């Protein structure tokens, strides 16, 4: 105890002496130590978050072919690609095609096409849509979304889910998005 006190007094007695230098070094090392830990944790936190976003998905492709135009009679809704691709291929009475996402605009359930009533009906909360995707009953806030449909080189219809035509509230998508319709 006595020794420490003596040492302390001696160090205080030396202006700019080893005591101050040591304190600076200790402060510096403390900063380096805590800084390294903080950096380590920051990098790890980033890695942990990034980890939840996989690079490769084993989901169906976003562009797919759905057969030839003559396979589809006018005025029908084809639900063949609903399960795998979440898409209906619809041909209107006038022969024009469009592809619509099978996803209710309320909370994302899959509506069913009811042929006898000529409407889409969502089983979750009862939203109803006309064949064009325009909502007319239930809690749905807007018409259902459409995807780009075109003719591929081999003459088949091709759907591109990366190009989307989102339904506008209260508007008929046939009029808002003429480019979503395909004449074939």
């Amino acid at each position, binding site marked *: 105890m006595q020794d420490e006190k003596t040492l302390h007094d001696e160090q205080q007695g030396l202006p700019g002496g080893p005591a101050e230098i040591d304190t600076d070094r200790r402060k510096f090392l403390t900063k380096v130590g805590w800084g390294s830990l903080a950096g380590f944790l920051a990098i790890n936190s980033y890695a942990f*978050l990034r980890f*939840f*976003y*996989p690079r490769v*998905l*084993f*989901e169906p492709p976003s562009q797919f072919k759905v057969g030839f135009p003559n396979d589809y009679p006018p005025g029908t809704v084809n639900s063949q690609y609903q399960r795998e691709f*979440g898409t209906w291929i619809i041909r209107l009475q006038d022969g024009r095609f469009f592809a619509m996402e099978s996803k209710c605009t309320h*909370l*994302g*359930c899959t509506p069913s096409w009811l042929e006898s009533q000529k409407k889409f009906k969502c089983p*979750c909360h009862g939203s109803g849509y006309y064949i064009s995707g325009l909502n007319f009953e239930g809690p749905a806030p807007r018409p259902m979304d459409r995807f780009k449909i075109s003719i591929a080189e081999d003459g088949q219809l091709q759907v591109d889910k990366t190009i989307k035509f989102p339904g506008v509230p209260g508007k008929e998508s046939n009029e808002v998005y003429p480019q979503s319709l395909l004449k074939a």
Partner: protein
Amino acid sequence: MNSLYDKVKKNLIWKSVFRRDYRDTARNRAMAIFGNVFLHLHPVRVRESAVKLRYTWGMGGITFLAFIILTITGVVLMFYYHPTVDLAYLDMKDLEFQAPYGVISRNLHRWAAHFMVIVVMIHMFRVFMTGSYKAPRQFNWGIGVILLVLTFLLSFTGYLLPWDQLGFWAITVGTNMGAATPLIGYQGPFSEFLHITPYNDIRFALLGGAQVGGNALLRSYIWHCIAIPLISVILMFVHFWRVRKDGGISRPQH
């Protein structure tokens, strides 16, 4: 009889496990609490007013009891359950129809889960109505709110695991709510400005993909069985510890 008693209790093995006898002295009663790892979070002495059931309703303790039942039955269920798209629903049916005591394990888990959600909310209601969130218990109220959210998340992630229509659409709807969240969801406000798509938003991280599929089932399973219970247990011990440190369990003033 006495010789059997001596044989069992008066030897090195018994004495190494049980350090004390059970003579009813104040010292022994105290030692029984803080000499036991399972009881040491509990105070050695409790005021008579602290055990008045009409004040606390015992809801926090009952919530913890539900959690213990859920942990035990949950581990039991894990022995039969594969978290894969092909097997999850069938395993759930196996538990109900084929596995010995499967149906009681599953139903205990299910009912205890509903029970825990209800009881934890009543617990929060009681804490609020008795003003037990006030100083010096503000911090513990915060921990409690996090535990409430974790309880809801446990309930939500467990919902998908039977892989039936109910769970599937509940998770579809729930994660779509995530997608509609501002700044972090692709359907939410500012998503176009921040270039948030279905492939880099919060929903994608929850589902492990852009649709509810095998990855979503596996992620739900891991969150439900490992990650959230682990976080909950840590916070529960902080919660119980702070109850003691903040002056013991809340009790009537007079």
